[in-house]
């Protein structure tokens, strides 16, 4: 396990290095000048040079990337002042420190992700299990059709509709907003309940189908038959044997989904006007804000990479045949 973790973490660092480098070079491959944008409408060449220098984009791209990397570990000097490690630079647009911006937004994204994940995991796996236990019968058919409807929903449609019905008309839910969890957990949950539910509708369907098919597959395995042949109750067979085998694929997509959501649920945040990582990434792209873009890319990529490692480690815990060395 230890060897596995060391190897995977080193691998993950390499991947992050490659992803940020590619982002960096792709940014400069676009024939547009962020300095001109920052400089304003009337911009004499000297001023432009100065702006360039201040933004740090007058150096060769390789050197810029190197400075950016070094900044993460050692901090970095800017015209605006010193930037402590871990330094991801300053925004081209409003000179906000990138690291602070991300730290500021991250709780929103994290809350959105965790809450939604709990809801869709419970509902998705639950209905999937029921469908598998009652396969071929009414409950299965209802769950399957419902998940098909859910899977074809779009957040910007359901979200807007749900806000209008539940918040504006019926007034049963609060208007989505982020409140600090530590300050008031109830306000926190209340403000995010609607986004959680809406986000879950789409994901739940996926988990229902995955759980059902995975369980049905496991239930036809030889070892499940053996468990029944030795007198285990259907409940034990279902929960202790079949579920154990069915967990693998569910954990895999769960890891991918968590990673993706932590990188910013862009559409969800836009739909509910939440200020998370997703909103940052849109702004970064629109404003050609390279440091911000790099920061967001780094966070999203790290989330995905980390959850991949977690998934693999989880596999080893579930299945003793998987050796992590």
């Amino acid at each position, binding site marked *: 396990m230890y*060897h596995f973790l*060391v190897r995977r973490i080193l691998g993950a660092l390499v991947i992050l290095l490659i992803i940020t480098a590619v982002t960096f070079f792709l940014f400069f491959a676009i024939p547009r000048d962020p300095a001109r944008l920052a400089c304003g409408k009337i911009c004499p060449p000297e001023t432009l040079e100065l702006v360039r220098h201040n933004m740090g984009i007058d150096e060769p791209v390789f050197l810029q990337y190197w400075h950016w990397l070094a900044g993460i570990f050692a901090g970095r000097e800017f015209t605006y002042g010193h930037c402590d490690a871990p330094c991801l630079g300053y925004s081209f647009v409003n000179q906000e420190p990138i690291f602070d911006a991300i730290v500021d937004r991250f709780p929103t994204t994290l809350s959105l992700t965790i809450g939604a994940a709990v809801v869709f995991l419970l509902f998705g796996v639950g209905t999937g299990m029921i469908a598998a236990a009652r396969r071929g019968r009414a409950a299965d058919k209802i769950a399957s059709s419902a998940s098909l409807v859910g899977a074809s929903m779009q957040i910007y449609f359901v979200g807007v509709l749900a806000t209008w019905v539940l918040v504006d008309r019926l007034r049963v839910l609060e208007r989505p907003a982020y409140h600090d969890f530590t300050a008031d957990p109830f306000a926190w949950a209340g403000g995010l309940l609607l986004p959680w539910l809406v986000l879950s509708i789409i994901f739940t369907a996926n988990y229902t189908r995955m759980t059902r098919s995975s369980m049905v597959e496991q239930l036809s395995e030889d070892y499940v038959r053996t468990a029944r042949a030795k007198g285990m109750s259907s409940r034990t067979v279902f929960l202790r044997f079949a579920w154990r085998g069915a967990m693998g694929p569910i954990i895999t997509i769960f890891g991918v989904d968590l990673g993706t959501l932590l990188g910013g649920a862009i559409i969800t945040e836009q739909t509910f006007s939440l200020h998370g990582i997703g909103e940052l990434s849109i702004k970064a792209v629109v404003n050609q804000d390279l440091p911000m873009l790099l920061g967001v890319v780094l966070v999203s990529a790290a989330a995905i990479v980390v959850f991949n490692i977690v998934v693999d480690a989880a596999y080893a815990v579930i299945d003793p045949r998987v050796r992590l060395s």
Partner: protein
Amino acid sequence: MTDDNLLELSGLTKHFPVTGGLIFKRQVAKVHAVDGIDLTVRAGESVGLVGESGCGKSTTGRLAARLLEPTSGAIRYRGRDVAHASRRELKPIRSEIQMIFQDPYSSLNPRQTVGSIIRGPMEINDIRPPGGRDARVRELLEIVGLNPEHYNRFPHEFSGGQRQRIGVARALALEPRLIVADEPVSALDVSIQAQVVNLLQGLQRDLGIAFLFIAHDLAVVRHFSQRVAVMYLGKIVEIADRESLYERPRHPYTHALLSAVPDTDPDGAARERIRLAGDVPSPIDPPSGCRFRTRCWKARDTCATEEPPLRRLEGNAEGHLTACHFPEAPATAGDQEVVLDPALG
């Protein structure tokens, strides 16, 4: 070495690496799948290869068909060493050596009709038989005992035995000189097994195709092969013509293997049998000296230190080679009763 040796394997070795390591994968051990075997197949002859799972018989088959590249040793096909031949050099040989596999279903593409499955090899090798490929496909279907009108059907429309016939027809499409058959009948029901064995036997007899026939079923191999080699943990422990091997086995392993086969003769069930203790050891770390010694009731100290060479023992027929320090007496076989203490380890 005579000219009628179609295929000659000498010192053939295949090790599969076992990798591990913290950051960079490196080889930490190797599976000794095939470890220095010598075997020849003469033109038109059927050589049987028997042994238990993990003995390397299938790997040997794949090496013989050059689907695998050996770690060392030579594979001489019609006198030419093709052990490390390139793709291009192998092309002419590929059509002369064909393989038949165990599972007739998974070795046929389910989305292709039988006709195109059999036509495939001809297209790849750009072979234009007189009368056209379609006519040849029908002819092949006829040879293997299928209705030629069924060339438009898909594999799932056929039974297991019929699918194996399709596999045979595909192998025949290139008019091979040698067919490597890897457990060709072990997935089939008994009554169907005989149909396929008879079909292959007819091909050997009528078309002069040589066979390397790999199977775990000793009775089937005896029925099909003129010469038989017994493998254990990557080595040939005994090789002989069929009669010598089955009637006068000299290697204790051959003897044990033969005595373990359940006999349908209800009176024979009472016969004393040799019971091998334990399982086959891991091919990653095979025993020193004679590899069979850990399960052998005759093993002595020499067996652990010295590897017995494969040689002709006194009293053996010509071509009957045995790798054993303490072989069975030449008469200990056939219907004679054997009383041995099976309790080992």
